[in-house]
């Protein structure tokens, strides 16, 4: 309801654009939360899958003249497979080691986008990309609708026995194995699905902005997703959604403060982590 009403409350084109961005961020936060919040794998490479979704779909559309609705599934599958590729390393690593490896993965992906100019146009970028839906409002409803579907499906998944299994891996992989859980398989599942969802978000980004440059998928993007998940509440369904909304709008609302903006943003993040270790979602739980 609130999602449907949002565009009426916010009418200027600029803010409507922010709404679209927000819907994409919700998807990204959900994708990372599955891997990090539920399965307990500290993954700093999520921006790479976002990038793959964006580049694969755009190249298929611009160079090979595919239809968006064909290119998008292909891009999602490509991102998913890349997620499985990272999982191949991830199943052997945990904690900080996985964080470093996944960060390296994001850096490599970024470098490939910059240097493989014959395909990606490198830093020159790809221009004149059209969105799948003509106006901003339509694009918002499309992405928000997809985000809602993803949310509902994931909510079902984490309440199902699969959710129990993923959480068991997060809590203690050895005792999960003693219960018959193939940890490598389920971690790969989480990485693959998480990557596919990030790839899905990536499909919409180029059309929305109109151009595509590697810098949009800088590793900072991974940390922004990380912040959304942690600030909202890791391992809860609503938390990352709240985190994505807050961290999309907060920097925009703070624009009035000019140069001070980033400092206030940083302090706010620190305060949340310091005083609300369970994220914003934990407030609701406590209030209940």
């Amino acid at each position, binding site marked *: 309801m609130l999602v449907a009403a949002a565009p009426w409350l916010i009418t200027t084109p600029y803010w409507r654009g922010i709404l679209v961005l927000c819907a994409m961020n919700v998807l990204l936060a959900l994708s990372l939360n599955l891997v990090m919040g539920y399965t307990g794998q500290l993954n700093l490479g999520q921006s790479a899958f976002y990038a793959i979704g964006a580049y694969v779909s755009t190249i298929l559309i611009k160079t090979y003249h595919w239809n968006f609705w064909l290119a998008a599934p292909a891009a999602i599958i490509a991102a998913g497979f890349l997620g499985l590729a990272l999982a191949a390393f991830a199943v052997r690593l945990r904690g900080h080691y996985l964080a470093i490896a996944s960060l390296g993965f994001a850096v490599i992906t970024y470098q490939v986008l910059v240097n493989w100019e014959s395909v990606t146009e490198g830093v020159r970028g790809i221009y004149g990309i059209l969105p799948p839906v003509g106006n901003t409002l339509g694009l918002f409803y499309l992405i928000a609708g997809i985000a809602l579907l993803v949310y509902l499906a994931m909510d*079902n*998944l984490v309440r199902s*026995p699969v959710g129990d*299994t993923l959480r068991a891996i997060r*809590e203690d992989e050895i005792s999960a194995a*003693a*219960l018959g*859980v193939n940890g490598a398989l389920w971690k790969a599942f989480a990485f693959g699905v998480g990557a596919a969802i990030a790839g899905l978000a990536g499909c919409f980004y180029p059309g929305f902005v109109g151009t595509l440059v590697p810098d949009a998928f800088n590793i900072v993007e991974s940390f922004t997703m990380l912040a959304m998940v942690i600030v909202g509440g890791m391992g809860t369904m609503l938390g990352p959604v709240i985190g994505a909304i807050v961290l999309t709008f907060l920097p925009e609302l703070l624009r009035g403060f000019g140069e001070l903006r980033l400092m206030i943003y940083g302090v706010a993040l620190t305060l949340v982590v310091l005083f609300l270790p369970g994220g914003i979602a934990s407030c609701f739980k406590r209030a209940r």
Partner: protein
Amino acid sequence: MLQARALSKSFGGVRAVHEVTLAVPEKMIYALIGPNGAGKSTLLNLLSGIYQPDAGELTFRGENLIGLPAYRRARLGIARTFQKIRLFKQLSLLENVRAGFHIHQDAPLWRYLVRGGSDRYDAEARELLQFVGLGERMHERAGALAYGQQRMLEIARALATRPRLFMLDEPAAGLNAAEVDFLLQRLVDVSRRGITLLVVEHNMDLVMNVAQRVFVMDHGVPLYEGTPREVQANRAVVAAYLGGEFAA
């Protein structure tokens, strides 16, 4: 049921388990005892697949276990608990036990995406919690339980896999007398259901009263195997426990 032949495992230069041969018969309470550092926990880790042996043979109901990871052995019907309790601490008691039904879940994935929660094993999970005396607390966090209760929860979770062979690593450690009594009762109940028990234990009450056979280890090698009465009467065993000078 479970047969090990000349099983060995070294860590660096230390021979934690050296050429251990043992056979656990079906539907028996089989105790594994020995002084600290005798290699009991290492042996259990070899049997459950947490470690792979350097040498030796291992079969379970005729199937070769060597090279099989822990999760595959659990599927064959081998469950275990840990000496240092390993619960899913942030999860509720019910979630802990529900996770134990993992290998019995057979619904296709898409159904979970559409329908979500499955209560197929909820009733059975509740029963198991009742069975270990934790039925009233199923929605509490496992990490909030007292030590003895955590041990019982770990037992309930392992039973959820519906094992044929259940291995417990010092289940009575850290329990008070009343809790040990309750544990004993429960282990006998489990055994009556036809589940074979392999219990590593220091608590002699438990070993001498409920075990049907006792396997004694010291310094990584088998020392003696027999009935509890025979073990108590054996000089080598007494010497290993109390020191040489008592074994006149």
